[in-house]
């Protein structure tokens, strides 16, 4: 975490790489998600456990997408979305969370996608790619 990184050789990238930051305080889920996204060919260039850390990362890495769990300690619900949208307006914002009742509210608050953590983790990569296509 912290600095941007890419573990794929430049030659392997087709066109522009799909750079992603994953923001999630739950380490067990985050590490698995990161592996899954990489398996699917996405370039996870950073991980963060708070909105503040994510914004700092985004300033140096300019990710094309951010995957975020809105349930971050000390950061109430929908302000996660508005704060990230404001700080990184060009990135696609995909909410990936167990807070399933918030789906409608998240989309209304500016999230570009919403995926249930427990039943839709296999669709995150596709959702990100779909938004950037």
């Amino acid at each position: 975490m912290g600095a941007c990184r890419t573990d794929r050789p430049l030659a392997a990238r087709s066109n522009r790489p799909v750079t992603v930051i994953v923001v999630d305080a739950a380490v067990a889920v985050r590490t698995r998600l990161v592996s899954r996204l990489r398996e699917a060919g996405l370039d996870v260039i950073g991980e963060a456990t708070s909105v503040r850390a994510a914004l700092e990362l985004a300033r140096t890495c300019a990710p094309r997408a951010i995957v975020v769990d809105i349930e971050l300690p000390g950061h109430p619900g929908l302000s996660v979305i508005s704060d990230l949208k404001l700080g990184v307006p060009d990135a696609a914002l995909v909410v990936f969370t167990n807070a399933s009742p918030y789906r409608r509210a998240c989309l209304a608050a500016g999230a570009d996608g919403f995926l249930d953590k427990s039943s839709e983790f296999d669709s995150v990569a596709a959702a990100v790619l779909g938004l950037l296509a």
Partner: protein
Amino acid sequence: MDEGVRRPSAVVIEALERQLEVAQRISHIGSWEWNATTNIVEWSAELYRIYGLDPGTPITFDTFITSVHPDDRLRVRTQIDGARQIGGRYAHTKRIVLPDGSVREVDSAGEFFIDANGEPFRLVGTCRDVTEERAKERAVQRSRQFQGSERGALELLAAGNPLHDVLAMLVRGIEELEPRMTASLLLLDGPGKRFVRCIAPSMPDEFSRAIEGVEVGPVAGSCGTAAFRREPVFVADIATDPLWVAYKHLVAPHGLLACWSSPITATDGRVLGTFAVYYRVSRLPESEERELIARATHVAGIAIERRQLDDQLRALSARIEAVREQDRTAIAREIHDELGQALTALKMDVAWVQRRLPTPEPQITEKLGEITRATDEIIQSVRRISAELRPGILDDLGLVAAIEWQAEEFSRRSGIPCDLTATIGEIQLERELATGVFRVFQESLTNVVRHANATRVDVKLSLHHGKLTLVIADDGIGVGTLTPQSSLGLLGMRERAWRLDGACTVRQRDGGRGTVVTLTVPLRFPHRDLPA
């Protein structure tokens, strides 16, 4: 001595006269005789006593009629004249004014005797002093009348009406007994130092406003002094009494001359306020009036203390409920975060294994599928348990979003459509209020699933005149068949409403099947009609 006619001796006559006089004195009955020819009136000794005159004072019809109370004089004269014209008897009640100015009430009866020419020549009559008797009758009647006010006040109290209404009923109850009396009830602040509320429905508002804020003390009118001394203070003349020097200007414009005040005390001896009776004549209360004031004071004490206990109980109950909600929120968070994330990771790992199976292995694939389904069920349980403990959406997105979500969940699980109309807009509700309304909503839906056998539920959330109203109507079997369990649920809803100073009713739907639960709560709470 003549044979046949035996005249009583002078000794016997004297004895009989003495006997008569004693009998008259004991029974308060005087007698008199008027000779029309000589215009001489003879009174018995008791009659002189009743009229407050020295025995032997010469009496004519004029001395008699001028001692009758001016308001009764014409009536008495007319009645006597009428009886004189046709002869015969008359009887009446009248007031007489004694030389010392005191007024007495007497029952009189008289009979004219007519001579051979049809002319009245003699009028004989009796007169009974009924002053004490009538006063006692009136006292009994006033006591009964005031009993009605006492009962009314206690009924209002028991039915949970505002304390002001309860106390105003006592104040009016005293005033109705006597048109020259005006009453007021003052309530003290917690430490008992200062009057914070004046209940005087017959007085102008500025009077009450002037009293509110007055401090108790050794020289503070009748009420402030009574509260300070913890004993009744009866002032006969406000204009001259030193206790009233600083306050007489407040009551003088209203024609109030006397003020009798008694402290209202709690069972633990605290002074809660004072009950005062103002009189338009300068005088002190008689024992009957003291008794009535004591009764009003007693009932007022019961009402004030009871309402203070109510308020304390409500505050305590709200505190317990708030702590309970805090605990539930913490547990819900913990379950949701810890278990939720761990289960998600577990499920991801199973999916990872599934993807990496080198060759299709039907048995392993099937087992992994079972593990996934079991994990899903656990995840759903964790989410449900956590949301039931405390839906995070209520804290993050507010009441309407939470009710919307709960309605959807309800429909999804029960298969009963639930239609929500919310017209309260984007208002910020206090946590306690939002929680209470949400919990009543949850409890109502639970009742629908358990007991109603309904096919649809309509929910309305609205705001009128600073009051939030939630109506939950179903088309089920109605409330006619309440089980003890469901009535416990209803009790819980009522208690929640009470804590929020609102009301919750459950009734049969008008003209059809079903139950309607209506919850109404003020946005500002806990609302207290009077300071504790």
